[in-house]
């Protein structure tokens, strides 16, 4: 009996390890390479670990103003997350709880819009952004990211709100709350897991976006980190060292946010509110 459980545990552990290794290998390989001196990165046969680790590539990207681009990316991403969550929560709540004219049409449109590839929208939105005078501005990026991610955010939050017991909102209304106060005091606090999931989804998109940023911006002042990273592929040939170092640095904030918000994934916040 005991042996069986132990064997099953070991088996499961091995499978997990295999999956983790498969997913993490490119990142670990990148990390290892980013610590090698330039001439060792592309040597053949490749070595698994650097024999004389160096931080020169990391020093280099920060000399190249990486901190400034990271800040830019952070500002744009944070603003996108906040704006998209606010609009997504309002939209998702309206769809979940109000029976208005054109509700199902709105829902269908929301889903339909999600399936349009961003690449096909680049040209028209470029024109739009230029006409609005938002070309080469952070605000332009924030508005575009919000527009791209809003349907998905609405959809995710709609699903989450639908899963909340409506009695709590009824109770809040009877207790004297207006609809917006009900949303603020009852619905949103109970929706933390849903909001966090949506926020991470939006954040990953905004933080990683390259195509939109490179199309809609040109000057260095508004350049985001992914665009800056791309420059190591550009003018001076392929600079693998700084490229890998910058890529790894760009992963760190996302991982940090995931770890920080992890406890909210575990839901169960609504437990005990409504019996039966």
């Amino acid at each position, binding site marked *: 009996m005991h042996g069986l459980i132990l064997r099953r545990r070991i088996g499961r552990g091995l499978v997990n390890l295999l999956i983790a290794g498969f997913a993490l290998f490119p990142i670990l390989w990148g990390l290892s390479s980013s610590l090698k001196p330039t001439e060792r990165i592309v040597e053949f046969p490749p070595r698994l670990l650097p024999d004389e680790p160096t931080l020169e590539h990391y020093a280099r990207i920060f000399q190249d103003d990486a901190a400034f681009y990271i800040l830019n990316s952070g500002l744009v991403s944070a603003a996108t997350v906040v704006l998209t969550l606010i609009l997504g929560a309002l939209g998702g709540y309206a769809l979940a709880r109000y029976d208005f004219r054109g509700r199902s049409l709105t829902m269908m449109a929301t889903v339909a819009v999600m399936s349009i590839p961003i690449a096909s929208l680049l040209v028209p939105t470029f024109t739009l952004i230029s006409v609005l005078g938002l070309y080469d501005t952070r605000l332009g990026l924030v508005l575009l990211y919000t527009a791209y991610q809003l349907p998905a955010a609405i959809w995710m939050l709609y699903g989450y709100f639908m899963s909340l*017991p409506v*009695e*709590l909102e*009824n*109770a*809040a*209304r*009877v*207790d*004297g*709350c*207006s609809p917006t*106060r009900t949303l603020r*005091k*009852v619905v949103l*606090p*109970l929706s933390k897991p849903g909001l966090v999931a949506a926020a991470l989804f939006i954040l990953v998109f905004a933080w990683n976006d390259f195509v939109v940023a490179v199309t809609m911006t040109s000057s260095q002042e508004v350049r985001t980190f992914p665009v800056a990273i791309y420059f190591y592929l550009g003018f001076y040939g392929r600079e693998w060292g700084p490229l890998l170092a910058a890529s790894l640095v760009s992963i760190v904030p996302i991982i940090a946010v995931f770890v920080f918000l992890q406890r909210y994934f575990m839901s169960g*916040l*609504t*437990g*005990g*509110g*409504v*019996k*039966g």
Partner: protein
Amino acid sequence: MAAVSFEGVSKRYGEVVALDALDLEVREGEFVSLLGPSGSGKSTTLNLLAGLMDADAGVIRIGGRDVTALPPERRDIAMVFQNYALYPHLTVFENMAFPLEARKPKPAASAIRAKVEQVAGVLGIGMLLARYPKEISGGQQQRVALGRAMVRDPTVFLLDEPLSNLDARLRIRMRRDLKALHHAIGSTIVYVTHDQAEAMTLSSRIAVFDHGRLQQYATPAEIYDRPANVFVANFVGDRETNFLDGSLSAEGEELAFASALGRVPLGRPRGALDARGPLRLGVRPEAVGVLPDPDAPLRVTLAELSGADLFLTIRAADGLEVVARADPRATRVAEGDGVRLAFDPSRLHLFDAGTGVAIAHGT
């Protein structure tokens, strides 16, 4: 001035008529139960009163004020939901303070604290204030839900089956507590239940619903002794009422009812008894007397002892069944015995067999 009034209020969901032209008045300080089987429109009535849904027709007034078009937050009512609907992210204290926090202008924090603590004291939940709803028992949650309603001193309390999630013992205790509470605070209460015993013990008046229609609205005694129709007679009471189909047969001064069980003397029932059509006689089990008689064609097929009462199911030759309630210590009858029946004329009810409407009652 009526505390609550419905005037011709209707509500439908698509094809389903959930509430049909309801007229109902609740007086100041009354405890009114809305009683009926599942799907009869009780919750619909309560939700319309709370403003959680809109009426399709009619006018609803609270304290004389027309609230038909007002949103719930402007009706000044308190509601206890069937599932309590405590806010899971807030402590018991914060749950109870919630309606006060929502007030405009917002009361001072000290005033809120004082009020919550006072109500918590009345309900005996003072020691739970720092806990979260999931950390307290069902009965305690129920009290917190009541407390959240009480802190507001509302015009009207609405309670939707607040005891249905509790176990039988606790339910009876809470029933007593509720009644005591009503006496103590004297508020108007509208109470939804499908438990007729609960309605009988708690209410000053009961509104009996079936299929979205108000069947009868009267005191518990009136509902029990003089049910307005077959449905009410059947629904109110611990056991189902016995019904016999037949017709009137006059014999001198005495009226009688001719049925498959033979002649049933009716005494002198009140009400106009010139009805000639087919009739239905209603007899509650406690109005059926059972006398042992080995030669009688009626047989006891089932004897159920439930502590204080002995319920006897008696079958006539043609398959007709009558249930009688007897005193187990005074009755010497066992399953299989032959018996004679005697109906108490003062507790008989006569209905029109076609419409089900009551024609006369023994009292």
